């Protein structure tokens, strides 16, 4: 790490600058547009979905496993993407499922990011045994795959949105801590921080006002990648039956509920929620890929 590495300025002024920055790369533009659309659909789910999938009274036994485009038994609604084994409209299920998937994905990534970042910066700032202890813990955590640790935690904690978020935070904080520490170490070697230290500013002020903002670029990239990973991990855990409860169906849960029917050719129960999941994750990853390049001048050549 040379001292000359310039910290890229984060553009936070006019909307026009933002727009120019987003449309700079087609992948970034597409990713942002899709993500906005997905988030919008999830927020508006109660308004735009044809059916309330939580309202058991609206389900009809005559409408189970209807293929895409079918009419309901009484002709009142049409099921654009078909219905599942309990007669639930797949499209409505996806819209509501997206809410849970997005809450778990963004929620766990943000909480893990906040905890991991602070821990990593504290480790870098204080050094010594604090740093050694924290970093050994990080090494231990990172040497075991996320899926396995999350699986075991949930086996003991039990199902539920809160527990899934907790398990994801536990498996994800270490990545942020490692990144934050190495970014903070680079900054700590610079003159402005020495100046801040010798002017006897309070430690809290140095860490939050001077150190933290300058460590953010790599952490923002990591955050984006982790959101995608968390959404995908939550879906996997729910698919395995240790994630969210059946009463709060996320996309992974919907995919799992359709899995038992695929051998009979009833593909749509699994296929459409899966497409929604993949589109969401790909959109977030496209944004992450662009940020990685945009926030790192070395890759911009």
């Amino acid at each position, binding site marked *: 790490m040379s001292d000359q590495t310039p910290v890229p300025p984060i553009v936070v002024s006019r909307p026009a600058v933002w727009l120019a920055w987003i449309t700079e790369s087609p992948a970034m533009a597409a990713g942002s547009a899709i993500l906005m659309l997905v988030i919008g659909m999830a927020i508006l789910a109660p308004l735009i979905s044809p059916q309330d999938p939580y309202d058991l009274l609206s389900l009809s036994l005559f409408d189970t496993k209807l293929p895409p485009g079918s009419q309901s038994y009484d002709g009142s609604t049409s099921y654009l993407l078909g219905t599942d084994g309990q007669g639930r409209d797949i499209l409505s299920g996806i819209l509501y499922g997206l809410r849970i998937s997005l809450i778990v994905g963004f929620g766990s990534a943000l909480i893990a990011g906040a905890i991991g970042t602070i821990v990593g910066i504290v480790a870098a700032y204080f050094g010594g045994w604090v740093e050694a202890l924290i970093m050994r813990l990080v090494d*231990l955590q990172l*040497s*075991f*795959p996320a*899926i*396995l640790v999350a*699986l*075991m935690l949930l*086996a*003991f904690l039990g199902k539920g949105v809160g527990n899934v978020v907790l398990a994801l935070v536990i498996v994800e904080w270490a990545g942020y801590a490692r990144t934050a520490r190495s970014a903070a170490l680079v900054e700590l070697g610079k003159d402005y921080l020495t100046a801040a230290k010798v002017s006897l500013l309070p430690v809290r002020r140095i860490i939050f006002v001077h150190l933290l903002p300058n460590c953010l670029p790599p952490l923002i990239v990591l955050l984006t990648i982790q959101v*995608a990973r968390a959404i*995908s991990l939550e*879906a*996997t855990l729910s*698919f*395995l*039956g*240790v994630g969210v409860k059946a009463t709060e169906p996320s996309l992974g849960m919907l*995919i799992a509920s359709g*899995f038992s029917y*695929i*051998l009979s*050719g009833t*593909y749509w129960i*699994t*296929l459409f929620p*899966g497409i929604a*999941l*993949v589109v969401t*994750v*790909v959109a977030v*990853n*496209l944004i992450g*890929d662009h940020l990685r390049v945009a926030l790192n001048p070395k890759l911009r050549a």
Partner: protein
Amino acid sequence: MTQAVILRILQSIGVILVMTVIVFIGLHAIGNPVDVLIPSDADQIERARAVEALGLDKPLWQQYFYFLQGILHGDLGRSFVSGEPALELIMKRLPATLELAISAVVLALLIGVPLGLMAGIYPKSLASRLSVGLSVLGFSVPAFWIAIMMIIVFAVNLGWLPSSGRGDTVRVLGVEWSFLTLDGLRHLLLPALSLSIYKMSLVFRLVRAGAIEISRAEYIRFARAKGLGRRRIVMVHVLKNILIPVITIVGLELGGTIAFAVVTETIFAWPGTGSLIIKSISVLDRPVIVAYLIVIALLFVTINLLTDLAYLILDPRIREKMA
């Protein structure tokens, strides 16, 4: 060098000890270990006897030593469900999991390395751009969904390949293997392929990035100026320098692949440790869960150790630093 190796081995033993402490605390922190270790239908006298036999009336540190002793003797309790020793149950299914994981890693290398080289050497070609795009998908699409799509396409619609079980196996060295029979290979292909997509994208990206970087290096230009054939430059000079990071990643990812096999095994009803652990979790068969954790932790630490040692042998720069 010898000193570095011994230090690294000691470190691994330390990690294993920490793991046993975590598992032990996990067992005690969550629920009463009496409920965890003794079947719930036992009556009061049986419970008292079992508490004494398991040493649960002893102080905690002493209990931890009993737990360690059990691990060293290969005694991790019996499954609540089948009554078989938990460790034996895991070991019996481990070869199936290893077979699946190793096949996936081999597939990832066989496809990822050549594609990565091509994309690195001819970055502008259509095939290269296509591979780059596909690798983004390979990173993003959750493995379990790829597996389901493969079943829908290849097993249900086309009917080419089976979607569950191991098929015919052959007994070699006292263990059943699928990859030695045609039927077994047919059963192995879909699970292994779906498990390998993520690794394949990873290997592809690493090799591509490495090839782009190394093609610009001085010694490659020198080799070209010397008049060496393109084939020799790529196969010997470029490839050799790319393989060091690739081997590290593959070693580290082998552990991840074994862990992720939990998902693939469940979908394809592959009779390995992964599908066993999912069943054990759903019925809270804790001795089996604990045995699985211990075996997997041992396996990971061993893999990490071997990867580090391989690195030490392959990269002269690190070897010199260690010496």
